[in-house]
């Protein structure tokens, strides 16, 4: 038998290591996915294939209402965060003013702030303003912790942008607003998509801040799942989780498509 070279040994080791890491990441999810199709109520033995749990999720009115709430809240949060974050990043990048550094820091800090603090402080604020908790308070709360992520992503992209691009657009007759829309925004698209994606997922699975700011009518899917899980494990949760994962993968694939610059046919 031929002896293996040290390079081959190293390659085999790397392959094994990669497989282990992937198993560590995806193993629990794979188990979950398998059990979501199991006829047994208990996640121990495989008894047979069924779509019953998916049907139950579909028929569970409070769960579906919460899912609808979550999607609407995440949608509005994403749009508001993209507008606020992109505009804010552009203004901070483009205009020099007194205190710009302080503003930049103040905008960045909430990203690192514990959610429990954000949630409690927002609750205090809404109480002080005598704002009834509900849909609006949840959206406001989500935008406050989501838009800095968009701002930071866009800011990083702006730092590497040729300042000549805006000038070239102005030079060719574009007003500052049109130059921003026609040239800067398309150049920022990858950062905007990445920021939007972050905002959407952050809003979609947020529990702590939402717990402080939601009302029973405006409850979100994570809060509802949390409530169900407290009562006991339910195979419906497996099915729900698989749906979540499938949706996440779909969003990632779509966003990667969006971030890629389409290549024209070679001449």
């Amino acid at each position, binding site marked *: 038998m031929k002896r293996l070279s040290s390079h081959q040994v190293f390659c085999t080791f790397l392959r094994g290591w990669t497989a282990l890491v992937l198993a560590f990441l995806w193993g629990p999810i794979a188990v979950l996915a398998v059990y979501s199709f199991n006829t047994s109520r208990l996640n121990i033995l495989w008894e047979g294939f069924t779509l019953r749990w998916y049907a139950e999720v579909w028929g569970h009115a409070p769960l579906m209402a919460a899912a609808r709430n979550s999607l609407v809240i995440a949608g509005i949060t994403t749009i508001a965060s993209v507008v606020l974050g992109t505009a804010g990043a552009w203004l901070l990048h483009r205009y020099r003013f007194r205190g710009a550094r302080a503003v930049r820091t103040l905008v960045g800090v909430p990203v690192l702030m514990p959610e429990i603090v954000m949630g409690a402080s927002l609750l205090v604020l809404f109480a002080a303003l005598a704002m009834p908790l509900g849909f609006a308070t949840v959206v406001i709360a989500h935008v406050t912790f989501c838009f800095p992520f968009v701002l930071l992503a866009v800011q990083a992209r702006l730092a590497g942008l*040729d300042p*000549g691009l805006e*000038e070239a657009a*102005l030079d*060719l007759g574009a007003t500052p607003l049109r130059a921003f829309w026609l040239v800067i925004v398309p*150049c920022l698209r990858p950062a905007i998509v990445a920021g939007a994606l972050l905002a959407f997922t952050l809003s979609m699975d947020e529990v702590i801040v939402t717990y402080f700011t939601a009302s029973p009518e405006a409850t979100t899917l994570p809060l509802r799942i949390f409530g169900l899980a407290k009562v006991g494990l339910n195979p419906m949760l497996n099915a729900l989780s698989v749906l979540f994962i499938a949706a996440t993968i779909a969003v990632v694939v779509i966003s990667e498509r969006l971030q890629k610059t389409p290549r*024209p046919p070679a*001449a």
Partner: protein
Amino acid sequence: MSASVELRGVAKRFGAVVAVDDVSLTVQAGEFLTLLGPSGCGKTTLLRMIAGFESPDRGAVLIGGADVTHLPPHRRDVNQVFQSYALFPHLSVRDNIAFGLRLQRLSRAAIEQRVAEIIALVALVGCEARKPHELSGGQRQRVALARALAPRPAVLLLDEPLSALDAGLRQTMQIELKRLQRRLGTTFVLVTHDQGEALALSDRVALVNRGRLEQVGPAAEIYARPATAFAAEFIGQANVIEAAMIGRGAELARLRVGGDFELSVPVALWPGEAPRAKIAIRAEKIRLVAAPVAAAENGFSARVEEKVFQGASDRLSLVTAGGVRLIAMAPNVRAGQGSFRAGDTVWCAVHPEDVVVLGET
């Protein structure tokens, strides 16, 4: 179509740095003018004032006779070719070129026609659908040029447009730029630090130094009659030396140069009664021979200290008996045909008309 540009006493400072200091300059309609100077001299700031990206602290900018000092860039009939090209990365060559035309709200047919026309003019046929990152450096340069020319600006501004190209391509593009300017008759204002580019392209050169104009005129004129030591040394290779008047004749004045050798110059060039003045002698105007040349014929001897091979010619570093250092050019000829080596003693001769008197010190 083309318009004149006038700068009237413009000045601009950035913090404590004076970028432009009281510059007045007129570019005629249809002229090719180059702003030439070392980096940081203020030439780019002058260009940006014409484009509208900088507003002068003092003074006025006029385009086609109209005061545009306070007009934003998008309302000026001026387009620029940027040093970085600043092509829009998300748009194809065609859409980059059409950008300015679309903003002019031309009809679709008119835009298409103009884009096709300008693509043919800059020889980019076949590249219409490509994105900037799929083009070579030379092609990008042409797109930048085409994009700026498409809306038929009255004045085209070019900020070091050829600096990113390699030497061979730069030469080709110089010829093309000159040809294009002649054909279109548009006023071109070009910024460069490359004297060769300035000499090759421009009708007139405005030499900028430390935020001020040193000299403005046709390249050949600045070359032949530099007004200042800076002008003499920045364009071409010149030896700038101090000289003292030691005898005044009817036609020629006798000078002691650098406290060492003597030269005669036409007396009319000397600044009045001044006892001393700076003179410039171009490296290639020093004639080198092996046999002695009489002092009366503007001859003096020197030792070759170093010889640098430069292809068509050799650059010699000379030292005279009195320690004056000079640079001279010697044609690259075969050994024994008048070539010199380091350590040789050579005789130098300078025609009186070839000495440039720069003015009082």
